[in-house]
């Protein structure tokens, strides 16, 4: 066999081994650099009108984790806000339930609405026990088209109410989720509406 062919074969084997180590092995873990920006977790208080004592005190979070997907959102000051699992996300904990604000990948060959109806909702229907759609509506949040999907589900005998709000973005979509007990006080409903309406993209 030609010695040059052997050299090419050996180099190919080495290249594939290095590729494997970078993709699935320890080399790649060191280079996987998408991390949350610490500035994204620094809240800035939102000025509240002196006369308005009924509104909750809100903090504004400016997320700077993912380029082309900068956004800001207001979250109640008395809720627990931590960095979510993925960059660009927040995990919310409050006495009545759980929530999150995150970025959601949408393939380029579809629209956000089609993606929700053809992929997201069927996935929920198959994975969430007792899934029952209650509402689906479109509106605009911060100038971007948004889609609200509200559904009921069952968890250890309790009925839970979940709301998913998808906000169209130039790269990824914004996704705000809440899961709460079915019977909610007006003050909590008001907070959820405030959070949802405060979402705004801040791309330069």
């Amino acid at each position, binding site marked *: 066999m*030609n010695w*040059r*062919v052997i050299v*090419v*074969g050996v*180099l*190919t084997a080495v*290249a*594939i081994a290095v*590729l*494997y180590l970078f*993709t*699935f092995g320890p080399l790649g873990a060191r280079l996987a650099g998408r991390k949350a920006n610490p500035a994204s977790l620094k809240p800035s208080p939102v000025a509240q009108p002196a006369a308005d004592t009924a509104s909750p005190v809100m903090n504004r979070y400016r997320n700077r984790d993912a380029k082309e997907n900068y956004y800001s959102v207001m979250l109640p000051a008395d809720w627990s806000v931590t960095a979510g699992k993925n960059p660009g996300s927040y995990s919310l904990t409050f006495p009545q339930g759980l929530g999150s604000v995150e970025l959601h*990948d949408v*393939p*380029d*060959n579809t629209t956000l609405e089609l993606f929700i109806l053809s992929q997201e909702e069927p996935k929920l229907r198959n994975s969430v026990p007792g899934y029952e759609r209650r509402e689906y509506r479109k509106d605009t949040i911060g100038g971007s088209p948004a889609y609200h999907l509200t559904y009921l589900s069952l968890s250890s005998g309790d009925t839970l109410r979940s709301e998913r709000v998808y906000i169209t973005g130039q790269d990824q979509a914004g996704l705000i989720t809440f899961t709460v007990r079915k019977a909610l006080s007006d003050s909590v409903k008001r907070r959820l509406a405030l959070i949802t309406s405060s979402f705004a993209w801040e791309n330069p």
Partner: protein
Amino acid sequence: MKTVFLIISLGVIGLGLYLKFFSDVPDSQETINAFVSWFLIICGISSALINLLWTRKRTR
């Protein structure tokens, strides 16, 4: 035969480049997409090189 092998090798490189730069995959599948596309590019280039460098010994 050599030409057919070369065309197949170039096709494999083209498929790898398409997957790497033009195919849109969900974020959760980006890692496997990158691995498969680079794998195809490396295999395509090496098989094209082997094809070009291969010389058969003349036996008489």
